[in-house]
């Protein structure tokens, strides 16, 4: 296996290097430092993958890194999963465009974390083994509940992957001058390498290193901006409003009516608590104590990161906006205004050049690439565990499967998911995919979260209730989003939307909870009675951790 691994690494680097070097001749020279730093990151992380491959001997190692990650490391990795290229570039771009609205958006992403800590983290760690479906199906019938939970996981993962792949292709195309298809294939291949050979251990360390690099780079940018204004927010804001007007300091059109506001809040809060690649990370620590610490550190890193992106967005207003160096002249000639090269999502990238020159631009570009790699790896691993652990080992083989076979199936699933991601990434290149992440959050909030939280805390939950409620949540989230302005008007070209709100979560989550409740309390079967009786033992384990999965012995 190791020989195959080394061969693949050398092959990948050779292909990548030859392509960028030959492309480099005609492209601008600013990419050289980016490419060198990116190659350093790739070779470093592949080295880690090689080390991790030797330590990954069982399914438990593969899914949970052996359960020996510390709270601090896991907090960093969780923060890394959350600080995707989309949130780094997207939120700083939103602040750059709309000022204060960007802050409202990032606060919505943050406030789910305390709730995860208070209600989800410990029972999840105490009850589960590899996936959140372990918890949802703990005392319910395995086949239907796992199938549902795995469908919710796979749907969330695939949607998220599409968004990441398309975003990454475009970003890499812009930053490194690589062809779009080439960039998507490169991301897909590297991600498969990390996950197949290094499992959760490599995926976690890739994520930790990237989180460290991203936080360092973003800190440097924020400090450079603030130093320019003698560390006075007042003068930074004063200069920014001179350029963009006073309205950037107030809430704008992001949340226009109370229903949309609450619905967005529900999607972000409960969606975060239902993201399979995040939930999976709680199984990598040894016990509930470390799980709590993970969330504490993660919340700190994420909160700090959002404060940085806010400063970076304002920094871009004062240093990038109307700066002739970053102006997209071709676009300005058609549309007027002061568009920047690559669109507003490139605000942070241009700012890195403004504060640190070509070298720092290279660093931030390489970090953005690394961010994509780390996030798609975590997503793929989560999707692969849903396929191998939930669908294959538990549903298809009824648990009668040895650890090695299960691990092999998850590696095959990883390769398949990687290929699917590459194909989807290429297929969706020119599609409007703005709704995709919203849909992923809506499904996570409406299908995954209600079943997970009710299975933990509600004695009367039955298989019938969970399956009907989860299915209703999933389908209503999808249907309402199709009927909403985001898809019905923007994509399908109809005049008015059938469902008037942009975010379906408030309605689909409510539907999920009500149907789960109704079909559970009206379930008088013997199976339902047994499931309700089994709650006591489950609750004791969830509260005390007695009988919980420990760290592996080596």
């Amino acid at each position: 296996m190791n020989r195959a691994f080394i061969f693949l690494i050398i092959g990948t680097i050779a292909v990548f290097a030859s392509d960028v070097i030959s492309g480099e001749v005609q492209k601008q020279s600013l990419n050289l430092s980016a490419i060198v730093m990116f190659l350093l990151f790739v070779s470093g992380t592949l080295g880690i993958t090689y080390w991790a491959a030797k330590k990954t001997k069982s399914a438990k190692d593969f899914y949970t890194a052996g359960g020996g990650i510390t709270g601090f490391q896991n907090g960093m990795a969780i923060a890394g999963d959350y600080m995707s290229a989309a949130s780094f570039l997207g939120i700083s771009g939103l602040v750059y465009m709309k000022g204060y609205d960007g802050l409202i958006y990032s606060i919505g992403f943050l406030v789910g974390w305390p709730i995860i800590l208070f209600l989800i983290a410990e029972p999840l760690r105490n009850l589960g083994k590899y996936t959140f479906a372990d918890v949802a199906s703990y005392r319910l019938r395995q086949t239907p509940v796992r199938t549902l939970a795995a469908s919710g996981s796979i749907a969330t993962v695939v949607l998220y992957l599409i968004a990441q792949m398309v975003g990454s292709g475009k970003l890499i195309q812009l930053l490194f001058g690589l062809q779009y298809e080439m960039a998507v294939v490169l991301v897909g291949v590297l991600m498969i390498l990390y996950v197949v050979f290094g499992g959760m251990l490599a995926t976690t360390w890739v994520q930790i290193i990237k989180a460290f690099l991203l936080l360092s780079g973003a800190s440097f940018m924020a400090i450079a901006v603030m130093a320019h204004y003698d560390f006075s927010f007042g003068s930074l804001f004063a200069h920014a409003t001179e350029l963009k007007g006073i309205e950037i300091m107030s809430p704008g059109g992001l949340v226009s009516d109370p229903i949309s506001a609450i619905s967005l809040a529900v999607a972000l809060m409960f969606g975060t608590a239902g993201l399979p690649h995040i939930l999976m990370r709680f199984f990598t620590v040894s016990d509930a104590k470390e799980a709590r610490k993970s969330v504490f550190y993660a919340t700190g890193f994420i909160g700090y990161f959002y404060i940085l992106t806010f400063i970076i967005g304002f920094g871009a207003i004062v240093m990038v906006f109307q700066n002739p160096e970053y102006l997209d002249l071709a676009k300005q000639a058609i549309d007027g205004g002061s568009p920047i090269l690559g669109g507003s999502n490139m605000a942070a990238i241009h700012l890195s050049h403004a504060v640190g020159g070509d070298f720092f631009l290279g660093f931030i570009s390489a970090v953005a690439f690394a961010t994509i790699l780390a996030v798609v790896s975590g997503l793929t691993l989560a999707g692969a565990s849903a396929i191998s652990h939930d669908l294959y080992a538990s549903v298809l083989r009824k648990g009668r499967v040895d650890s090695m076979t299960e691990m092999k199936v998850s590696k095959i699933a990883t390769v398949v998911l990687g290929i699917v991601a590459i194909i989807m990434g290429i297929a969706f290149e020119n599609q409007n995919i703005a709704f995709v992440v919203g849909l992923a959050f809506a499904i996570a909030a409406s299908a995954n979260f209600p079943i997970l939280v009710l299975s933990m805390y509600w004695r009367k939950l039955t298989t019938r209730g969970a399956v009907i409620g989860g299915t209703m949540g999933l389908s209503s989230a999808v249907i309402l989003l199709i009927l909403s302005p985001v898809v019905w008007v923007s994509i399908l070209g109809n005049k008015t939307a059938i469902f008037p709100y942009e975010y379906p979560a408030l309605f689909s989550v409510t539907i999920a909870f009500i149907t789960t409740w109704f079909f559970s309390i009206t379930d008088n079967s013997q199976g339902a009675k047994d499931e309700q009786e089994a709650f006591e033992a489950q609750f004791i384990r969830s509260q005390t951790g007695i009988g919980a999965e420990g760290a592996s012995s080596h």
Partner: protein
Amino acid sequence: MNKELVEKIKNDPNYKELVSKRNGFALKLSILMLAVYFIFILTIAFVPKVLGTPISPDSVTTIGIPVGMAVIIFAFVLTGIYTKRANGEFDDLNNKIKNSIKDKQ
């Protein structure tokens, strides 16, 4: 976990104390977080002008900036408060429960 063990833990006063204290605490903190966030987001939805008020007449900085930062810091502080109490007091109670059943596992 067998029936006998379930009954024993269920009637353990330490277990009762752990469950009621921890879940009460977790619920209180959750409600606090939700309340702060929903007040914030509903203020924006209903009366957006409030957060757009400058902090002083000659400043462009609005009240919204420190309030937004405060919500972020508040979320972090809450996780710190919970983690500290859970890793201390609650885990001590939990260890008592675990020790009392050591011979039975």
